């Protein structure tokens, strides 16, 4: 008898656990409500809702089938920080990809790490120094100089001028 009771206990606990997990997988109540409303309002066919690559979204949490079975939309609102990007396939046609690969190859071969390239300011500075008439070295303005000063100025402006 104790054996049967223990089993029952176990089964009950397991069922609770499963119910708990199932609940966790379901989206929060408020969100489900909103989704339901949205579906009633829009009459869009479900396929167009995701022109992006659906495979990429598979990694995040999906709606459980029980609430959105009829429409089959995969919406991920509780998205984990994945390293994916949603793109429009039309922009990335095969020809564009070939062109990009070819361009990358040329760039890597001509301007890659082994090519001994020099920055423009160094090149022209050396040219200026080697000239018969010596001139100053070339130094390009770098936007990252004096960052804290610029930030202070922006804060001052926001407070006193705007």
């Amino acid at each position, binding site marked *: 008898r104790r054996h049967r009771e223990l089993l029952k206990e176990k089964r009950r606990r397991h069922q609770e656990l499963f119910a708990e997990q199932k609940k966790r997988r379901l989206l929060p109540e408020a969100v489900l409500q909103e989704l339901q409303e949205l579906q009633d309002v829009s009459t869009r066919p479900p396929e167009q809702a995701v022109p992006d690559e659906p495979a990429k979204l598979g990694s995040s949490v999906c709606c459980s089938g029980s609430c959105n079975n009829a429409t089959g939309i995969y919406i991920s609102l509780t998205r984990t920080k994945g390293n994916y990007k949603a793109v429009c396939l039309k922009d990335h046609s095969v020809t564009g990809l070939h062109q990009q690969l070819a361009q990358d190859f040329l760039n890597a071969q001509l301007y890659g790490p082994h*090519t001994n390239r020099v920055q*423009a300011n160094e090149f022209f500075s050396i040219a200026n120094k080697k000239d018969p008439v010596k001139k100053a070295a070339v130094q390009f303005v770098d936007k990252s100089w004096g960052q804290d000063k610029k930030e202070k100025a922006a804060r001052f402006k926001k407070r006193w001028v705007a």
Partner: protein
Amino acid sequence: IGCEDGSVKIFQVVPGGIQFERNLDRRKGRVLCLSWHPSGTHIVAGSIDFFRVIDVTSGQTVQRIMVNHQAEKAKRECVVWAIALLSSGTVVSADSFGRVQFWHWEQGTLAESHTISTSAALSLAVSEKEDSIVVGTSTGATYQLQLLPVRLGGLEKRWVRTKPFQFHSHDVRAVAHSPTALISGGLDAQLVIRPLMEKVQKKGYDAVLRKFTFPHRRLVSCARKARLLLFQFSQYLELWRLGSTEETGKDGEVLPLCQMPEHLVQLKSKGPEHIYCSCVSPCGTWVGYSTASRFQLYRVRCDGDGVSLRKVPKVPKLLPPAYQLQFSADSESLFAASARGSVHVFQLLEPGGCKHLHTLQPPSGCSEAVYLLAPSADGHWLAAVSGDWAIHIYNLKCFKHHCVVPTYDCAVSALAIHPSTNNLVIAYSDQQLVEFSIPEKQYTSWSRAVQSRGLHRTWLERDSPITHITFNPKNPAHILLHDTYLLCILDKSLPLPDDSALLMNQSALKQLPETARKRQLHAFKICKKFQPLLFMDLLDENCLVVVERPIMDFKTQLPLPVQQKKFGT
């Protein structure tokens, strides 16, 4: 055409384009360079680490040769950047290790190998006689290799690297070999022609090194009344309004502006094609441009602070599009230069429309396209220069051909019609200047005087052509012209200089007293202060607008050059 996937495709050249014929044998590895055998029986295709020879009739690869097995540092792949197939069956390859190698493709052996540079050899060209090759490298150096006998008078010949040149600061991506000169084009925006001393007959101007940085076409248009400038870049146009000043000052002073120059509009061209020609109307309300496949016309409206640009719909389709665009002086017509010597005349309609009026054609036909146009200020005449260097003049009132200027064996670089006398002033690319009277259909007496006297030696030795000619409405004797390095006001009422006088005598004249100045004054008043010049025009009697393009402005934006290790740096 060699493709990314390793295939080589043959196309037929038909009028209007190319037509696919067939595919040759495909192998793995992108094709980077191709060369036909002079007889057309074989094609050699260079790839990464190897090149292959294809028999054209069967389409099969008959030989595949690995290029990399001799490089010490075989970690890197060897890219064959340029290749050539000589009639003797020798293959010449230029690769990324800086080597130029000669192969016997039938035996699959390496005949000679020359390492000419530490960085990549990017381009090569073979002379017609196949005894000289020019190679361009990544460092900007070009080298000549020549086939010379090993012993004087002997029969055995070998390739030897003879002349090194350093004309460019950036990569040399294209080279060509003419019978008398080596031509190289670099990423530093320079085209260099180096005549070969042993091939040049007379030691005159032909033997000089020529360097070109700017195109010999007009890239800036000016709307005089509206004081607007239109700049033509390769993918977009920029419209600027000029600033103005209320002050006056002495010679050499910089006056402060009361109104700054304004960048009004940037008009981007759709698609990858370059903008070939562009123009703004004298009133400043119409802007037109043409690419290789499209011709577009826009209406510009400046109300208060805002500028609006509206495209003119239903512009008549021109096949092929315009080689030169020019608005008439009253901004009511547009002239478009087209193929086979024809010029289309369009009428511009308010508020923004365009109607094809007429097509002007030379009476005896012409196979070349028109590349320069000059309308007269009174709207009566139009001069058109076609590729065969013939200058035709048309009467716009009755749309008939009026006359043709006597032929001269040189290309025209600029021409313009005088507003009051209707004389056509022509500048040729050999620096000759000619004035032709349109109503009288003959050269003017001043022009005949210039021709018999001859132009000054310094003027004839300039190496950039005149790209724009304009006039002073207040002084009919003045002709204003400019090339890349000087602007000149030609005063027809003054005597012409002879060779003994100094041509650029403006600074000398300034220091002389009034009486001495009168004796030395001559017709050419030259200013070399603004260089390099892209454009010069007279706005009104007090203002001259001059557009300079400093070379460092764009040199700093070029792709990275290769470091040249120099002693002491």
